[in-house]
């Protein structure tokens, strides 16, 4: 690939600074210190103490996407070592790096056993950093490491515990083998609560100078379900779209729903009505034939809505339905659960939307 010129990494780092204005907001507003991390009070409280003491346990961060795991450990490392020593003291490996068993044996082990050089506290930016006498190895997205590679880590973690701390980061804590997990202090990252999300979003909106209606914040909260990264991405796209028209318009909750891929209520309601669920519409629902149900399903598939999104919205509608008998709700929920599993296995979406439709249709009629 002759037209690619490999540039020294240092230069790439400089580029990023120049880029600041054009940076996506998720990066621009990534917490720089652990105090910036919203909503994870417990974790932050524990980590704050490690900044003053020189001790740090091995750690395991787990929780759903976009809750601040990666940000927290990066911020902590930066606060511990400062910009000068970051490179020599912190090794970050993630799922995009080769992390098979051989890498664990070579690269990770090599880094783990180097004795850190003592450093004076004052750094080039004039601040003092604690710079404790150990290194940190961050294994981000550790749930995608093989069992073998994880097993190989065990010894390394023990042998070099004096000079190296590990921080494993993952979404699914059950994918980490027990012997590793039991060597770590575990920190659970909760989905962000509504108040923290709304505060963070308002903060960003202020900094970016956009007006944000409370209804829009609500829409962001419901569509992102505690995933702050998602709500920030949505907010940025929405604001860009709103600014691109002349004169600029304000962001509406509908914009957010559209961006988030939410199936419009009218579509979900019409679907439910076809299945014989009373949605308080005009004509009392009458028994629909197989062909009618199938036609509705085909239409939805043509519109390209995602099956999992549709089913989750249908699920909410049914569970919260005011008059539907409990037995009907239970049967419908069963059908949706089966479909969810099948979709995870990669089954055909059209067949399963139809299957759910027919099962619910049978249950409620």
């Amino acid at each position: 690939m002759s037209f690619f010129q490999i540039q020294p990494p240092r230069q790439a780092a400089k580029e990023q600074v120049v880029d600041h204005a054009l940076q996506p907001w998720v990066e621009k507003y990534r917490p720089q210190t652990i105090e910036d991390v919203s909503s994870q009070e417990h974790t932050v409280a524990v980590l704050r103490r490690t900044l003053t003491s020189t001790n740090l346990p091995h750690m395991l961060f787990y929780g759903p996407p976009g809750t601040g795991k990666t940000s927290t450990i990066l911020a902590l490392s930066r606060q511990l070592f400062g910009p000068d020593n970051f490179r020599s003291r912190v090794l970050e490996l993630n799922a995009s790096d080769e992390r098979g068993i051989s890498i664990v044996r070579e690269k990770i082990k090599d880094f783990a056993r180097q004795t850190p050089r003592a450093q004076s506290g004052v750094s080039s930016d004039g601040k003092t950093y604690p710079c404790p006498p150990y290194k940190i190895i961050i294994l981000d997205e550790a749930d995608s490491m093989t069992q073998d590679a994880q097993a190989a880590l065990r010894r390394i973690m023990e042998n070099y515990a004096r000079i190296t701390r590990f921080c494993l980061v993952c979404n699914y804590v059950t994918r980490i083998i027990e012997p590793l997990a039991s060597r770590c202090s575990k920190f659970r990252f909760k989905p962000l609560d509504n108040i923290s999300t709304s505060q963070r979003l308002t903060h960003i909106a202020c900094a970016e100078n956009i007006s944000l209606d409370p209804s829009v914040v609500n829409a962001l909260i419901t569509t992102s379900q505690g995933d702050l990264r998602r709500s920030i991405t949505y907010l940025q796209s929405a604001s860009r779209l709103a600014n691109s028209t002349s004169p600029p318009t304000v962001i509406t909750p509908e914009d957010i729903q559209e961006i988030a891929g939410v199936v419009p209520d009218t579509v979900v309601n019409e679907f439910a009505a076809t299945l014989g669920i009373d949605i308080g519409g005009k004509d009392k629902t009458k028994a629909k034939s197989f062909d009618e149900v199938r036609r509705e399903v085909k239409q939805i598939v043509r519109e390209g809505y995602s099956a999992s999104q549709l089913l989750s919205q249908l699920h909410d509608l049914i569970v919260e339905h005011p008059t539907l008998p409990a037995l009907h709700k239970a049967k419908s929920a069963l059908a949706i659960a089966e479909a969810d599993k099948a979709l995870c296995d990669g089954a055909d979406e059209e067949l399963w939307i139809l299957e759910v439709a027919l099962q619910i249709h049978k249950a409620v009629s």
Partner: protein
Amino acid sequence: MSLWVDHYRPKTLDDLHYHPALSARIKSLAKAGDFPHMLFYGPSGAGKKTRIACTLKELYGKGVEKLKIDQRVFMTPSRRKLDVNIVQSNFHIEITPSEVGNYDRVVIQELLKEIAQTQQVDITARHKFKVVVINEADSLTRDAQAALRRTMEKYMSNMRIILCANSTSKLIAPIKSRCLLVRVAAPTEDEMIKVLKYVASRERLQTDDAALTEIAQDANGNMRKALLVFEALKMQKGILSGPVAIAKPDWETYCCKVGDMIIQDQSPSRVLEVRSKLYELLSHCIPPTVILKTIADRVVELVDESLKADIMHWAAIYETRMRVGNKKIFHLEAWVVKVMSLYKHFFYDIDMSGFD
């Protein structure tokens, strides 16, 4: 001379015939420097790829159309060599993971790293980042998806990713959380007719509404199919006026025949006959899911209303098993036998509960 589908493929966002609001949205995104990672999803033939190509053009101008194909060799961890063809321009690169099978993670890791660590050589380029287009993203293995996650964050100043998929269900949540989702719905019948009319006028071809409607209905939202059929019909007939009698493809007729066979007779010998037909279809590379769905569609046309739901239920079940399992034919056949048993049960009202 190229096919109409290619020849009349829109080149810019403004040329796109349908979903104008969506085009406008992409356009405004492309204008700003902070273009996000994107995930285009929607049914096949809805025009996702065309839209992506137009987006690239909007981002970089004419330069993206200068494509070249590179032969690259990748090394798997077990030291096997992988030859991969990669389509690229100065500004973007395209990969189709299914071409590399289970090793997609290796390819993704290496390619993305390489791109992330390099910079746009063309100083006149409008954007500092390069775009990586990943086709059929829903066939990415879990490992490969995991490999994308942090890369998507870390190298955002040098690279953007555009994923193209039929559905978002098979993508892991952390990936979806890093992308802007763009739904591309299939065109409606009227929208398809509009496109067909446009092509007809450019070709100076006489048509009437009846013929175009028929083509649009037959294509069922798949614009590519509509244009292909349109051109084929024109080759056969010259002037297009309805009714045009669109011939079904051979495999579809064949599937229907299998459906008929299942309903005519339910016996071990018939199962054998059906099996050989299924093998025939599989050996012609018709995807097993398509075979199952097409036969099921035919069978439910033929049976009593009370049986239809059951037949589709088992179709869904066995289709899933087919995905999880290994041998497609086992599950296709199991479904056939199940349908036969249901049908016989219904017809003679025999108690077959012992067979479940």
